[in-house]
């Protein structure tokens, strides 16, 4: 790419922009700034109370229905279990019991694996879809139309979709086995499709993938097209542009989608119960069965551990992107 026409004169002494006048102009323009920003800051402070008043109902709602139950659960997890529920004497027994319960940890591990598989699979499967919608579909109308169609499964109830997964689709006589037999891929129906860990994991990917596609779509749609063009212009091939321009700008979407899917699948109870047909357990079903057996303190302790684990995981995921700066 070396220019053949560069004169020797320019090579011998360094070429520079003479910036005296330019910097002076920038200085003149800057002097107007403090006044402008000062005014805006004052206006913002005045608006603060109004915004707080608007936010108050929502904050009260969250306080009452989210924070208060959480506090209660934490308290209950330190109380003593009785046949009737619990009495308010402090104990660490619920936790020490859990720490020594291998079945609980086994459960936690398999739920964690399921969640990680769901996050990775949703990312790998969802990214191309979001990429296509946001960057390849040129007309805005078509883009929105296709996005709404992609959302269509969410128009049906969660339970309906989960049940549709069991017998009709994945069961012994279900569509998947039928198709594979017709295609002579298999001769006998595969048992593992129905009410198995595999079917639970497959179902979760399908049920939650839109939580990945949606934030990815919105961050990809905001990728600066001209920055993309200029990366091509500066010599980047597709992969170079993707890695250097698209990926950094999409990180917030990846992080948000991953948090959604991780949190939703770790705590999932409905999918495991229906698609797993009672054969499969997860942290969610375990907590549910403890509550069902009136073991409130044990159930609460399991729930608290899950919340701690989720918070830790969310913290780790957010390390991948500075959301406050990038979004």
């Amino acid at each position, binding site marked *: 790419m070396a220019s053949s*026409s*560069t004169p020797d004169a*320019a090579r011998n002494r360094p070429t520079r*922009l003479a*910036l005296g006048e*330019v910097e002076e102009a920038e200085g003149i*323009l800057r002097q107007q700034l403090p006044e402008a920003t000062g005014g805006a800051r004052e206006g913002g402070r005045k608006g603060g109370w109004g915004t707080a008043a608007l936010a108050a109902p929502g904050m009260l709602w969250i306080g009452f229905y989210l924070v208060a139950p959480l506090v209660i659960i934490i308290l209950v997890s330190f109380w003593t279990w009785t046949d009737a529920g619990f009495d308010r004497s402090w104990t660490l027994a619920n936790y020490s019991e859990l720490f020594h319960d291998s079945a609980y940890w086994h459960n936690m591990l398999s739920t964690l694996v399921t969640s990680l598989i769901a996050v990775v699979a949703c990312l790998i499967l969802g990214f191309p879809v979001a990429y296509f919608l946001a960057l390849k579909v040129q007309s805005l109308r078509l883009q929105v139309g296709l996005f709404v169609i992609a959302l269509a499964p969410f128009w049906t109830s969660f339970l309906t979709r989960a049940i549709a997964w069991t017998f009709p689709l994945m069961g012994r006589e279900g569509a998947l086995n039928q198709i594979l037999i017709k295609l002579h891929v298999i001769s006998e129906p595969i048992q593992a499709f129905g009410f198995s860990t595999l079917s639970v994991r497959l179902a979760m990917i399908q049920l939650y993938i839109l939580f990945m596609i949606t934030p990815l779509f919105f961050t990809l749609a905001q990728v600066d097209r001209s920055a993309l063009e200029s990366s091509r212009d500066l*010599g980047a091939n597709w992969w170079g542009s993707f890695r250097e321009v698209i990926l950094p700008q999409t990180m917030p979407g990846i992080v948000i989608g991953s948090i959604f899917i991780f949190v939703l699948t770790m705590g999932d109870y409905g999918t495991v119960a229906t698609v797993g047909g009672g054969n499969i357990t997860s942290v969610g079903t375990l907590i549910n069965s403890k509550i069902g057996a009136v073991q409130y303190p044990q159930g609460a302790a399991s729930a608290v551990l899950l919340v701690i684990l989720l918070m830790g995981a969310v913290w780790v995921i957010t390390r991948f992107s500075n959301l406050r700066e990038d979004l």
Partner: protein
Amino acid sequence: MVDQEEAHTEGAATAAPSVTHSGLDLIGLTKVFPGGTAAVADVNLHVDHGEYVVLLGPSGCGKTTTLRMIGGHEYPTEGDIVLDGQSLVDLPPHKRPTTTVFQHFALFPHRTSLQNVEFGLKMHGVGKEERRKLALEALDMVGLAGYKDRKPGALSGGQQQRVALARVLVTKPKALLLDEPLGDLDRLLQLRMRVELRNLQRELGLMFIHVTHNQEEALSMADRIVVMNEARIQQVADPLTVATKPATEIVARFMGDNNIIRGKVVEREGDRLVVEDDEHIRASVIAPNARHAVGDPAMVSVRAAAVTVDETGSAPGTLNSAECEIVFVEFLGDLVKLHLMTGGERMLAKVNAQEYPSLRGREGERIRISWKEEDGQLLDA
């Protein structure tokens, strides 16, 4: 580099394309967008290395599309783009020896200025040490070495623009393409960056192709101006010629501050024509190549700055003069623009600022204006 100005003054627009082996040639370049609108129609142009060419025209005239085709961001429907004997048409942008400064700088928001500048070198496989050194040199060249770790969001518009410049120059392109490079800057900064950008180009000796809709910017920066309108080249000439001898009515109107006298040829004597309009303003003009005969419709343009105000006045019907009513006296600091009306025609005169005290407040009065024959320019339709 500067003396090339003489080499191509005018007429290149209509000359048959000749492919030389040095410089850039656009040959019959045409772009038709789906739906059938031609954005660029049969553009022929030769640009030398070291030349500063400005594509000038109103929005939608095809100047940006032409630039994007050179850079590889649009594919021509017809025609060829040849740089130093090599056709670029089938090369993707990243394989072309051209780089573009995009309109809104198009910096990578998640990368520091140093990383932005390093990018092109990284993509060309330059080693880490080497590319860091070259990138720092380039940042120093635009006076931003001290800002190497800042992200674009923490830089002013002018600084971002300079990072964008360093980012493309570091890849040592054969041709630099600039799409409204000063459009996003404050006017004060714009005025000063013009000079610096032009000086930088002279020192580097690189081919710059610059797109703008700003007439003043084009006049102040270009070796040659390519005036475009509705997908076609209207005129290719040096700034002085474009400003004083517009080739067509469109150029005369777009450049602004031109008086256009539209009428019929009433006399012809060798190269000298006299055109008279409906208001009986008679303008004489020397036009060696004119094919007009007496009775043919014709247009003459006269720059507002070439018009003088005669308080004493010449007799009505005199050549190259008109009696007008003053509509508005506009003071512009270093000059005064007189908005005049002669019958149904608007006319403009630009006079020295020192005339302002004697002209101020005289709206509604009648005044006589005149101009010299050599300031008249016969226009192509």
